[in-house]
């Protein structure tokens, strides 16, 4: 039985987050800038596109909005944005495939991430939603590291930084002495 030890918070500024992304997730080609994630990806016909994903959080999820008018093509420039409504039909399967591949690599349930389309004001957006409940269930199924496990309590981005709050658990701590703050 895992016991909740407390919470661990991390706030990473743009520079430090990009250092970590470049070091540990270079294959994702993901950059954090001014509160948004920028992702470069290739479409099947060889056109490279850059997507901007704006992150916001709810109690149960982290949602990335991808405004169609911010989609840029490597060669076509603004043309990609003009075609974005149509391009989303091409981009969505590429993103979906990348997400499924990452989930499958880690044996994570498919319902951890869902894709949809919406309208925010006058702008059409693609939505990529990371659901915390299946993510945390998966995290709790992982073997503990040095006895420790974590759950994601909250994750959100501001213009300057990415914030993450983790619940930290430990296995086999029935002998913990009582201390202030223990619940």
């Amino acid at each position: 039985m895992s016991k909740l030890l407390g919470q661990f918070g991390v706030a990473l500024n743009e520079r430090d987050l990009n250092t970590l992304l470049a070091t540990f997730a270079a294959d994702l080609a993901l950059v954090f800038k001014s509160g948004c994630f920028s992702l470069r990806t290739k479409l099947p016909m060889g056109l490279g596109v850059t997507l901007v994903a704006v992150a916001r959080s709810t109690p149960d999820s982290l949602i990335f909005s991808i405004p169609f008018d911010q989609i840029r093509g490597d060669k076509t420039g603004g043309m990609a944005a003009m075609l974005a409504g149509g391009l989303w039909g091409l981009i969505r399967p590429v993103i979906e495939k990348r997400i499924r591949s990452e989930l499958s690599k880690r044996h994570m349930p498919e319902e951890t991430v869902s894709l949809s389309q919406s309208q925010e004001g006058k702008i059409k957006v693609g939505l990529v939603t990371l659901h915390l409940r299946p993510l945390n269930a998966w995290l709790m199924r992982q073997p503990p590291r040095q006895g420790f496990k974590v759950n994601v309590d909250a994750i959100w981005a501001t213009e300057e930084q990415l914030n993450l709050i983790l619940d930290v658990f430990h296995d086999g701590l029935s002998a913990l002495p009582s201390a202030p703050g223990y619940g």
Partner: protein
Amino acid sequence: MSGSSSSAGSSKIELDSKLLNSLLSIFVNKPGGLQVQLGESGNLQVQQGDLQVGVDPFLISQALRVQLRNGNLGPFTVQLNQLQLGSQGLTISLNLLT
């Protein structure tokens, strides 16, 4: 947890008081030996036998460079800019150096 708002462009890690006391219980405190505990008022209480030491809440603003080595990933240099201990727990402001 109050959140992880950063100041002056530093990144930040925060351990709330509950987590800090849990980690002290796991890694530091030994039955009949050294006992270290963060009190509700933010005082760090250290006890070894009859000797008791109380450390008031503190804020240390002193740049300190730390080398982290992690297997094949090579060393990371972390500059610690500020350490703050209080009733809320421990907050460390830092920057990764490349």
